[in-house]
């Protein structure tokens, strides 16, 4: 993702038109999805671009883990990160509401929201923020997290900015889903290799036992299985110990009753 930041010339307050920057941002996000990418880097870019492109002073992204617990994945600055964490710790705030309802949450004046979020509203005001816009990261009915914009003014955010924030959120959603798909398939590949390795380990251990006791492979296997059951251990673990030499071959010779 450093590559992405390097490719992008300094923009805020510079000559590059907003539209150009916008187009470039989406092209970069799409490009980065084609190659291997780091989801945290990518979400950090999204948070940074929100601040550069939209009428907002800070941005943060929350993402639910596989157990449904929200985590702070990216923030444009430390203040935004602290505010996100604060919401998680106190279990209240606009970002949590956007995640749980799957709907955008608009709060143009935090001073009016001390009933809804007493702890968060006062903390955000103390940090100098006046308004918050929170957008769910959502694909159809599946809400993955939330994109949150923290602002020091209480103006209405322009309609174009709102649509843009949603579009950036959608890009983030696609990246998150792709990242999860890659993780899933990597996990499956790992399981397959583990299964193959286990099978090989068992065959090798069978060979060692068969050679040592001059028995055939099925007797060797039976001996390993008997030992595994008697000692309440997995067959693969017993085989691995035999190969590592930590379980002597003679320990598996059946004891006469």
């Amino acid at each position, binding site marked *: 993702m450093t590559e992405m930041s390097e490719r992008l010339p300094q923009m805020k307050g510079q000559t590059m038109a907003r539209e150009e920057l916008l187009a470039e941002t989406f092209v970069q996000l799409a490009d980065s999805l084609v190659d291997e990418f780091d989801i945290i880097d990518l979400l950090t870019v999204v948070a940074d671009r929100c601040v550069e492109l939209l009428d907002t002073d800070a941005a943060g992204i929350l993402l639910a883990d596989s157990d449904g617990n929200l985590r702070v994945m990216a923030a444009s600055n430390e203040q935004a990160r602290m505010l996100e964490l604060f919401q998680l710790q106190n279990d209240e705030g606009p970002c949590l509401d956007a995640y749980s309802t799957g709907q955008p949450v608009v709060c143009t004046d935090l001073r009016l929201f001390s009933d809804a979020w007493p702890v968060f509203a006062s903390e955000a005001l103390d940090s100098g923020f006046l308004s918050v816009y929170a957008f769910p990261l959502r694909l159809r009915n599946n809400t993955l997290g939330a994109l949150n914009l923290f602002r020091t003014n209480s103006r209405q955010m322009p309609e174009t900015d709102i649509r843009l924030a949603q579009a950036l959120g959608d890009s983030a959603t696609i990246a998150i889903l792709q990242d999860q798909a890659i993780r899933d398939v990597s996990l499956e590949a790992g399981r397959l290799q583990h299964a193959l390795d286990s099978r090989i380990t068992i065959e090798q251990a069978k*060979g060692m036992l068969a050679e040592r006791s001059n028995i055939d492979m099925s007797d060797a296997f039976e001996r390993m299985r008997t030992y595994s059951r008697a000692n309440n251990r997995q067959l693969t673990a017993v085989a691995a110990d035999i190969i590592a030499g930590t379980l002597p071959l003679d320990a598996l010779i059946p004891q006469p009753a």
Partner: protein
Amino acid sequence: MLQVAVAFARHISQPSPVGLCGVCADFLDVSGAGITLMSGLNSGPVCSSNDRSGAIEDLQFTLGQGPCQDAFATGEPVTETDLAGNRVNRWPQFTPQALEIGARGVFAYPLSAGPARIGVLTLYQDLAGALTEDQEADCRAVAEVIAQTILTSQAASRPGVLADELDNAGAHRAEVHQASGMVAVQLGVDVAEGALRLRAHSYVAGRSIADVAADIVARRLRLSGDDQDDGDGGVSR
């Protein structure tokens, strides 16, 4: 790409990786196809479309060398359009024996699962020449479908247990690993070393590792301590 996948999926009657090789060879219009499952240095056959492609798979496993290993290591397709061509030889041991088996062109496509790799699709041609652009595109597509098919078969299995169809296909090369264990005890070395000795013996004896392993498991052959690099010298029958 999607069209190819769909066509290929329709072409196979059952979603089992084991029946795929014949279909691959027909569909891709090549002389033979073999699918190998790989994990680190270990590898095992899932299927091969004919005896020659089976022999090419065995040869690469015996030598630990060939397009299959390169494709797995790099994650990129590996192509040799003419093994008999007069150019720098990347596989000094593999090439002459592959030619003897009857392969002129070899093409290996990694089977990828996200960033991970699970095996290789190896194709051979009995005549020299490049694959067409369409064939190449189809090979990549077919490799994706095969990878997915293998993962799908394994997904139905209990964790840590190899799927029945892969197991039955001999993807774990049972005899080779049994023989490695036996050789380890015979020579008083660890299993990794036993496997190396087995491989070295096979290479020097000019036999496939599967054949040598079968002899060892049947106790027709023992490797003795001085059997490191002198072929049959250390063999007692």
